[in-house]
């Protein structure tokens, strides 16, 4: 058996030899920033993706007309100035925008970037044959886009549009298509859906150009010398895809990654402890994590638990959930409870207050509503037990919160059955028996996005709108709660169309008051984007975007330590 021994010693020697040649896998040269992404972008055409990671990758290579910075102000990028009524860029009735580009802009291949590119982009948005997944609101509102001269174009809308960032610039329109690349494809195929440029882009306008994409592995970006805000100081940015968060955090701790977006709140403590050089920055992007209550009837098409139709029960549930413990213990204090769907935006009513945890008051309210504690400790009324189906996605941090809320509600005699579904099932359509769409739940936990730059809130004007309650004849309806308040719908309409900023703000305050009293959903907390980065890799502090605009709005000024 000497051969076996030989084989074993040979493999041992091999392993040891390899260990010796292992160069310290420490970082990267000083000109390269290495970023860890949990997902690989699915498209490099922003119109074909709704993935945050694709947005981040796109924002590195695409310049907007203007960016929203970390103080929520607009900073012109391609546009010469941000249009307003005062500077004549927006008509008095807010239906026409005239936008001027900076002179002499170019694409990374040297072709001029002109109003023709913008007009082409808007035409693509208008043609439904392109199957865009983004810019739906623009497509609905736009009447025409026309070039006035090389650097000027005009947009006409079917109704007043008081928020220019929704219709142009970031975040509404953060992708501008190079017409000289896409137009030939469009003319030949009638759609740009399958254009090679979507997946293997060659022409860019942003701070970086994509120089290499190893599928499933990494993307390499090189500073664009022609970028209108100047050449980025960091020459190369590499995005590496780490589908497993544990190994991603390990690479961050070992100094093999410099920067990681989307650290889940629950993971913040261990990330910080893993390496003393790591710093966490939290920015809020308008996601409010909430419990959506099913108050629908059987024709919509499934009713939730009958108790939820009683506002006293809803109030009791809000009182019985200790949201402070959840944000402190499970989310490392990175956020705090809120009762406002406008939380962390300039439209949040500062006098609204936050409902304090009060299980006694909750129990009293439930008694008052006729839900008495039964023999088994669970409340019941007319033979119906107060037992709620509480569903969410499979995200681990959500499931932790579910478990804690289950315990808290048990203390006031409310029994909760926990359910979790993959996002494709949870958010699926009516035809696909999506959990939310068909109302297969009593409490559902997820976040809707809220614009931080204007008070028109999609959660209010769509997801809580009377006309959006799903039914056999309205299968695409988005109001999964079944809540209906004419007064709130009217206020939502004001936030959408009023041309008076104060009137819009007042309407937003009215909405917050109605939601606080009627409780169509129990807001838990605003969810931040948490970025972790290795401070030793950077020279000085770095500015990260607000979470609604461009994360990299200031990346040209980021500098690596030498």
């Amino acid at each position, binding site marked *: 058996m000497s051969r076996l021994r030989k084989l074993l010693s040979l493999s041992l020697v091999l392993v040891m030899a390899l260990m010796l040649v292992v160069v310290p*896998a420490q970082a990267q040269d000083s000109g390269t920033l290495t970023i860890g992404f949990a997902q690989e972008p699915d498209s490099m055409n922003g119109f*074909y993706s709704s993935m945050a990671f694709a947005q981040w990758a796109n924002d590195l290579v695409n310049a907007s007309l203007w960016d929203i910075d970390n103080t929520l102000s607009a900073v012109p990028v391609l546009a010469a100035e941000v249009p307003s009524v005062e500077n004549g860029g927006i008509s008095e009735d807010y239906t026409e925008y005239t936008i001027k580009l900076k002179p002499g802009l170019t694409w990374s291949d040297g072709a001029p970037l002109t109003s023709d590119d913008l007009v082409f982009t808007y035409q693509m948005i208008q043609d439904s*044959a392109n199957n865009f*997944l983004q810019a739906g609101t623009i497509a609905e509102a736009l009447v025409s886009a026309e070039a006035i001269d090389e650097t000027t174009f005009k947009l006409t809308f079917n109704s007043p549009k008081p928020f220019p960032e929704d219709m142009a610039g970031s975040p509404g329109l953060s992708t501008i298509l190079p017409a000289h690349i896409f137009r030939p494809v469009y003319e030949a195929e009638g759609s740009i859906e399958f254009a090679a440029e979507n997946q293997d882009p060659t022409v860019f306008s942003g701070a970086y150009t994509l120089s290499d994409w190893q599928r499933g592995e990494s993307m390499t970006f090189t500073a664009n010398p022609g970028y209108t805000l100047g050449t980025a100081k960091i020459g190369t940015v590499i995005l590496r895809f780490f589908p497993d968060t544990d*190994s991603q955090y*390990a690479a961050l701790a070992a100094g093999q990654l410099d920067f990681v977006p989307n650290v889940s709140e629950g993971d913040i403590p261990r990330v910080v402890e893993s390496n003393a050089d790591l710093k966490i920055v939290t920015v809020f992007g308008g996601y409010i994590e909430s419990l959506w209550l099913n108050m629908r009837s059987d024709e919509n098409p499934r009713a939730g638990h009958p108790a939820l139709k009683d506002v006293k029960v809803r109030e009791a549930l809000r009182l019985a959930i200790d949201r402070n413990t959840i944000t402190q213990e499970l989310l490392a204090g990175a956020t705090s409870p809120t009762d406002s769907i406008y939380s962390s935006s300039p439209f949040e009513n500062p006098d609204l207050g936050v409902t304090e945890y009060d299980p006694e008051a909750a129990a009293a309210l439930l008694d008052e509503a006729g839900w008495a504690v039964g023999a088994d400790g669970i409340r019941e009324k007319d033979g119906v037990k107060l037992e709620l189906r509480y569903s969410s996605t499979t995200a681990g941090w959500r499931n932790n919160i579910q478990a804690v809320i289950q315990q808290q509600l048990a203390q006031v005699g409310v029994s909760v059955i926990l359910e979790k579904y993959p996002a494709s099932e949870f958010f699926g359509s009516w035809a696909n028996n999506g959990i939310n769409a068909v109302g297969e739940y009593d409490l559902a936990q997820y976040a809707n996005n809220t614009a931080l730059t204007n008070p028109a809130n999609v959660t209010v004007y769509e997801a809580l709108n009377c006309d959006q309650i799903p039914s056999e004849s309205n299968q695409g309806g988005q109001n999964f709660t079944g809540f209906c308040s004419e007064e709130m719908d009217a206020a939502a309409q004001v936030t959408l169309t009023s041309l008076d900023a104060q009137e819009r703000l007042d309407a937003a305050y009215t909405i917050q008051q109605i939601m606080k009293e009627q409780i169509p959903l129990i807001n838990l907390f605003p969810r931040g984007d948490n970025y972790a980065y290795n401070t030793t890799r950077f020279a000085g502090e770095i500015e990260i975007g607000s979470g609604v605009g461009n994360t990299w709005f200031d990346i040209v000024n980021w500098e690596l330590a030498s």
Partner: protein
Amino acid sequence: MTRYIVRRLLQSIPLLFIISFVLFAFTNSLGDPLAVFAESRNRPTAAQREEITRRLGLDKPLLEQYLYWLVGNDWTLVDVRGDGSVMEPGTREGVLRGDFGNSFVTRRPAWSRIEERLPGTLVLMIPSYIITLILAIAIGVYSSVRQYSFIDNLVTGLSFFFYSMPIFFIALMVIYIFGVQFTRWGLPALPIGGTGNGTFLDLQLHMIMPVFCLVAIQLAGYVRFIRSSMIEVLSQDYVRTARAKGLSERIVVQRHAFKNAALPLVTLIGLDLPFLLAGAVVTERIFAWPGMGRLFIESFERADVPVMMAILILLCVMVVVFQILTDVVYTWFDPRIRY
């Protein structure tokens, strides 16, 4: 022999049709590919979603969708508005004409996504499988010849130690020790995740940890299999005859015992080989390896039916092919087998 192979191939055709339909029904029940927009900003309106659904053909009954998947829809018109106002010609050619359709996620041909990931998977799986087999044969044969010796007990014990551990645990431990702790101790650390910068040396460095993990969890099964198979053969009369003829122990073990004990091993390898193409889901995920296992899980999470179907059909075809190959290899190991 040729007739046998042709017959087996023909038999497999109806089988593949049945399997493909079952898989199609299964993958289509996984959820709504358009659900990913739910939490996004500036999402498509309900009407736009419906139009996209119709273009993808997802509004059709399952049997019709399967038919289009099979033979394409370029001979029919797609009613994109649902009211007959806009009729577009279909663009798919169908699997029977080599078109697996476009990925719902990237809008690229599903097959091109497999082409991107297959090399990564093979680079990881083939070496680890070869190392597993070599080690398993060496250890398995040794333990059968020296049953219950110290080394037999030690190696078997160790291999079971790894066998009983979940792969993600081994993988994360290895990363933690050789990636993170080695850095903290100032030792040369191994790179975490990915395949490196494109050089062969860097690739090898990136392979050490995932290959170790794959070998560690697979080894025990093969060792036990070879060991028991060898022990059975070693007690056969013909082995005693070979020894009585005065053949050296080495010839007895290698030529008379092992070749006979290898027959069930060939069956096992024949069953396992096609699944090397499937990659290793957990290992690829943890080590950020660009392979097929990860592609399948990513497609699963997004309900990307065309890509999932392309992967599954590839595996089905490979299973059929390797079964036939296994039968052919039998005839070499056991001359009594004839077709």
